[in-house]
């Protein structure tokens, strides 16, 4: 080993030790000064960020791979992760219904439309709820620009949510207990088999990396449910951040049935470090940044994109937030957590968002975000 190599190795080791130390310190400070549960949730969020970025597990990219190349690997991994969570979550919700809540919401007109629009937009910016956080943390400029508008959109969507739900909703349908678990697992297996059947023969394989990632994401999602009492989500926290900004600037939210409600006013007055989705969101961004820095993957120059690409990013970012509130969640809160806790709306979200994603894949090249 030359002197230069030895110095570089020592520098890399100390850099990585500093990253681990900073993450551990952040968790310890939150655990100590805010509460142990909140420190644990931040650690779970960091785990999500590290896993999603470190093992390249996502949602928008795999859907795009299936649409363009009939590559089923990522979607199979998603369904596998959801199944693991369902096996634990659905029985736990049946036995501990007071302590734990599922991601249960009704199917409705606005819910379906919101999921469809979300599907379009997640393909335009190539980032879903979790993906936008991960990508921003790992140095993707499109996601960084989309993120604040995602938050503003989430705030605005929640502001108008009761008007949208007033357009019509079906009664809440939840697959619960043993029969609910069986229905959920059979449906996941059926979708998996269909995707496998539709896949290009040369793509019919799932890399080991994705099996590991899916298992880790599932364990973290189960941890999120057990520790916080509710499933993994993303969008609510982003809207809360924007609402806090509006409040600080003197905005009056009393006119909104959502933000003006006593429950929400209490949450607006409380620290974001006590908000479950805010903590995991913060952890995801920080965890992704940690991995990117660990890999020395932040030296790459930023791409040069035309103005229309940035305008499209801002509009799509806003619509990601707005539509996901109407849809009662994004790919995480509705698709992943909805299905894994037995909510019918998660299945409907999946169908509507996938149809939207097909359109989004077609639209994206015209917006200057990739070569035509």
């Amino acid at each position: 080993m030359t002197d230069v190599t030895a110095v570089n190795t020592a520098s890399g080791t100390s850099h990585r030790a500093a990253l681990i130390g900073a993450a551990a310190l952040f968790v310890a400070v939150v655990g100590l000064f805010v509460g142990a549960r909140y420190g644990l949730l931040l650690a779970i969020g960091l785990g999500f960020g590290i896993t999603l970025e470190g093992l390249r597990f996502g949602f928008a990219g795999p859907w795009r791979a299936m649409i363009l190349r009939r590559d089923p690997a990522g979607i199979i991994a998603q369904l596998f992760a959801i199944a693991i969570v369902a096996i634990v979550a659905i029985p736990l919700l049946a036995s501990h219904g007071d302590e734990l809540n599922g991601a249960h919401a009704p199917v409705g007109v606005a819910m379906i439309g919101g999921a469809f629009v979300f599907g379009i937009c997640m393909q335009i910016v190539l980032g879903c709820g979790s993906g936008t956080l991960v990508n921003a943390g790992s140095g993707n400029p499109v996601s960084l620009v989309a993120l604040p508008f995602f938050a503003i959109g989430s705030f605005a969507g929640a502001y108008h949510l009761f008007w949208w739900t007033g357009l019509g909703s079906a009664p809440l349908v939840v697959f619960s207990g043993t029969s609910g678990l069986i229905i959920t697992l059979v449906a996941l297996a059926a979708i998996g088999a269909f995707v496998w059947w539709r896949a290009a023969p040369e793509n019919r394989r799932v890399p080991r990396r994705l099996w590991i990632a899916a298992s880790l994401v599932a364990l973290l999602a189960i941890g999120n449910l057990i520790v916080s009492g509710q499933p993994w989500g993303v969008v609510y926290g982003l809207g809360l951040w924007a609402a806090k900004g509006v409040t600080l600037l003197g905005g009056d939210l009393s006119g909104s049935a959502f933000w003006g409600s006593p429950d929400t006013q209490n949450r607006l007055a409380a620290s974001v470090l006590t908000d479950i989705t805010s903590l995991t969101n913060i952890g995801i961004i920080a965890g992704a940044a940690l991995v990117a820095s660990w890999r020395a993957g932040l030296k790459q120059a930023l791409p040069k994109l035309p103005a229309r690409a940035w305008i499209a990013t801002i509009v799509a970012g806003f619509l990601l937030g707005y539509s996901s509130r109407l849809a009662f969640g994004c790919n995480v809160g509705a698709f992943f957590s909805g299905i894994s806790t037995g909510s019918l709306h998660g299945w409907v979200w999946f169908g509507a968002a996938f149809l939207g994603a097909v359109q989004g894949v077609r639209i994206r090249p015209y917006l200057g975000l990739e070569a035509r």
Partner: protein
Amino acid sequence: MQLTRRFVAVMALGLIGLVLVIDFAGGAVPNAYQAPAVVALGSGQVATGAMCAGLPGN
């Protein structure tokens, strides 16, 4: 000067910092002595956290 992904990552972390600053500026100070049980499961406490699928009051 050519900007790199490091700049974007730092900005993303800065965004977290901005959220925390806005939070503290709005007077939201956490109190560890009012924190719930470490783990919700088995705590006997009713889950009250807000999430994407929920509506206020439900």
